[in-house]
């Protein structure tokens, strides 16, 4: 029973592709229940205009209203305000963390004249390391992967001495990361002359 018959032919991914809101992380149809509706709406409008049209049309809003009694609507409004206040406080906190989180780009000598570049701290800026590692690999046409750090956490390891290029790329691509927070360092192994 637990044995799964493997169907012939190449396996097509069957998972439904779901869009999640870039602001509040919920499926956009649920944004209305969070405290960041305005921002969510802007995000959806610029990223998924078709979905925006559907979810924020007058028809949808009317349909949503009609299922609630006036009193329930009032309570919902009050609730929404509370949530909005909470959300903006949380956002301020998140901003603070982002503003103080450093990104380290480290040149590490692996063998003689063989370098890798380690990049740490991007996750604190809301980036998905796996995806960024892939982008690095594509951009610089080299090996790039996410590796675990011995003390917990993860970093991106890029093959080759690319500190400066990565610095420029990060500054250019992730405009939310303050340039002052990005630091290039060199992890030098002491070696005998020669």
């Amino acid at each position, binding site marked *: 029973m637990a044995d*799964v018959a493997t169907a012939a032919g190449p*396996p097509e991914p*069957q998972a*439904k592709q779901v869009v999640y809101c870039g602001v509040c992380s919920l499926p956009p149809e649920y944004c209305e229940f969070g405290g960041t509706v305005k921002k969510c709406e802007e995000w959806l409008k610029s990223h998924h205009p078709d979905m925006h049209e559907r979810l924020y049309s007058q028809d949808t809003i009317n349909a949503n209203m009609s299922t609630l009694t006036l009193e329930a609507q009032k309570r919902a409004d009050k609730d929404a305000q509370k949530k909005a206040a909470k959300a903006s406080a949380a956002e301020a906190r998140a901003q603070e963390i982002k503003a103080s989180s450093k990104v380290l780009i480290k040149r590490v000598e692996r063998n003689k004249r063989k370098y890798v570049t380690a990049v740490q701290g991007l996750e604190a800026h809301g980036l998905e390391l796996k995806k960024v590692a892939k982008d690095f690999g594509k951009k610089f046409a080299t090996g790039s992967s996410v590796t675990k750090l011995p003390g917990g956490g993860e970093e991106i390891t890029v093959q080759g001495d690319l500190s400066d290029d990565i610095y420029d790329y990060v500054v250019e691509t992730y405009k939310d990361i303050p340039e002052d927070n990005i630091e290039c360092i060199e992890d030098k192994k002491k070696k005998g002359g020669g």
Partner: protein
Amino acid sequence: MFKKDITPGAKSKVKSSAQRAIRNKVVEEYPLLAPHIDEIIPKKEQLDLVKLPDRVSLYTLGSTPLFFQHMDDNLLPHLSVVHKFPDCFSRIRIDRGAIRFVLSGATLMVPGLTSPGGRLPDPEAEGEDERYGKEDLEPGTVVVVEAEGKEHACFVGVLKMGTSEMKKVKKGQAMEGGHYLGDGLWGLNLG
């Protein structure tokens, strides 16, 4: 179960034998996922176990959460898995008014399911409503909760009351605990 923000605890690799056991358990609990199990937990990829507060174990693939379990309770799917394979779970539906309560972590009450906007299994269900099944569900069943006017599920948990009783008494607590959109598990940062 995850009303507060949570910080993931220790992460460890799941042994291949244990990984096989988890795959079997998933298929056993959710037979409709069987055709998709290789897509959800690819044989060659490494599952991780992340310890969460209050004795909850979370199984992840890289930074993607898949299933979680409180002690030896039911193995529950993360809502992102539910969103990917919505047809593979027992489903019920709450009315629109109940959504904001569920999303704030309140116990799901029966009236939200028995009102005109709610849906429970119904032998006479037709069309769109057939997705909610025709046969009543027993207490203890893992169900996914969808919402009136919404495409995606907002909650997954275990039934506290059977659906036939819900239809009879029309009040009381329907489900408790569980995982809802926007809760600590949803917001968990797995790097």
